[in-house]
């Protein structure tokens, strides 16, 4: 099993293909978070790895410890869990790269991957029970701690009747799983929704279950603040990190996300200035990581 501890960068297609991952070699990075879907083969063939992407994965593995991140697993939809990409591709990938834990997202999966980010889970007690059952089974299949990342959403899904924090914490506690706390998602939701308090969110979720933290920046567009990952980490997010790090004693990883237009055509496109932008944020995260109290024993 690989060892992950410290501050990392998410090596998504913007970093790998658009900007070129080698350009980040001077940034203070302890590990690379890799998006599983970038490297696994389609479900309708027998491969595990996509042969086109394998050389990049091997090159990253030579340079950094790898942390796997699951985006399009589809595990919380209504198809049999055994048929999902999370089960058939993501779990063997986690094993193959020896990722010590893996995070997923609290969205409805369906055979159409692109629906995921527009389909947040319904925050309801019945869904806590259903989702927790699938999460527990998936964690068994993964063979490592499974973390759930809190969602950025434009509106809670229809039928939601419990607060987001109660839902997220409820799933993790019922399933015996863990959390990836995306502080930018928390911030963006608090900016966009009058009834969403970032402070209340952080007070409610079980911080002892937080193993990973995501940082990112976003963009204002048409009166909404979007989680586009295309700007420096905003000050309120740094403030939240400063507040959370001393309390969340099981955190092993802080990861910066930087990404070009992945969700909307008007999302600010990447350019070479993003390399120093990311390095600055990584240095600041490293400084805060160095000042945190020692981690709890795992």
């Amino acid at each position, binding site marked *: 099993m690989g060892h992950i501890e410290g501050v990392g960068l998410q090596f998504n297609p913007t970093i790998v293909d658009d900007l070129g991952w080698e350009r980040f070699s001077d940034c203070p990075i302890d590990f690379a978070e890799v998006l599983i879907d970038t490297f696994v083969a389609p479900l309708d063939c*027998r491969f595990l790895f996509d042969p086109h992407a394998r050389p990049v994965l091997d090159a990253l593995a030579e340079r950094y410890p790898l942390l796997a991140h699951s985006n399009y697993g589809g595990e919380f939809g209504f198809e049999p869990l055994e048929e999902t990409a999370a089960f058939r591709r993501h779990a063997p990938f986690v094993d193959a790269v020896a990722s010590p834990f893996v995070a997923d997202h609290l969205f409805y999966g369906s055979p159409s*991957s692109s629906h995921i980010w527009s389909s947040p889970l319904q925050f309801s007690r019945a869904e806590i029970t259903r989702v927790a059952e699938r999460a527990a089974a998936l964690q068994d299949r993964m063979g490592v701690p499974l973390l759930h990342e809190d969602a950025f959403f434009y509106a809670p899904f229809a039928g939601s009747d419990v607060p987001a924090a109660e839902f997220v914490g409820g799933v993790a506690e019922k399933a015996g799983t863990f959390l990836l706390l995306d502080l930018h998602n928390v911030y963006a939701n608090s900016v966009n929704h009058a009834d969403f308090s970032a402070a209340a969110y952080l007070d409610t979720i079980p911080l002892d279950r937080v193993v990973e933290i995501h940082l990112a920046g976003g963009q204002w567009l048409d009166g909404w603040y979007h989680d586009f990952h295309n700007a420096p980490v905003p000050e309120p997010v740094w403030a939240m990190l400063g507040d959370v790090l001393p309390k969340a004693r099981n955190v092993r990883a802080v990861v910066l996300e930087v990404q070009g237009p992945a969700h909307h055509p008007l999302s600010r496109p990447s350019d070479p200035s993003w390399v120093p932008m990311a390095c600055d944020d990584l240095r600041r995260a490293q400084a805060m990581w160095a000042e945190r109290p020692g981690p709890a024993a795992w």
Partner: protein
Amino acid sequence: MTVPLDAAGCHALWREVIADEELCDALLSGDAASVVADRCSDPAERSILETWAANPAALRWNIVNLRFRGSQDTMFKLRRWMPLTSALLTEGRPGWLLDLCFEYLAHHRWDELGHRHFAECRRFADYVTGRVSQRRRLPDHLETVLTYETAVCALLERSASVPLEAWGPEHAADSPIHDLRPRPGPVSQLIELDEDITEWIVNGRPEGAVLDRPLRLLSFVPRLGDTYWVTPLDSGPELVFRRCAGRDTCGEIADRLAAEVGARAHDILDVLQTWAREGALVLE
């Protein structure tokens, strides 16, 4: 009293909103009452639709983003598995390809096929031949390129249902093959093209000469490997490959072909040995 929809019901209804542009537009317009009444007799479903209609800004972001993501994901799939078709159709312009993917997904009610990349490529090829071809003259050589790329996709798609045991025991490079019976590997096929697009295949884009002569390719998935091979097959090796049907031994094939075409039996055995080592043939 209205019984609320459970999460599965809400999700099914949400997928219907995604798929049905008329319904979606009505919800976004703020004037959805008549369309909702027409589509839905169930009060619980109506109530959920009214919830979405009451927040059109959030609904718009969800839908606009979803359509952009779906188009972009489809574009990435096509660039990866059908690079020649994609480039030829759109003169290598990413914006044009994105627009084409948008039209294609709208035609399929935004039912993007996610992790089933090869099924997506096959469906896109059908869209090109069935619909794009109706409104514009398709570029020269596109038929050849489509034949090649859909054949490779079909080969890889076929691999999904083949058990690992089908490849048989691994064949040591230096073990004798004379008395073993060769047959094509479980995932292999000959691809026959009317034009020689070798340079395009090697370059990964439509650059280089297209020769006016047939091209035969052997494509196969070797055992246990996360890869696939496509290799040109001249008429001699093609003749050898076609004799590998699991009936005759390597020695018999080599001796007969040597007698028929004047080749050296030793050379034919070398070819069979190489294919067995690469996994194009299974020896039994």
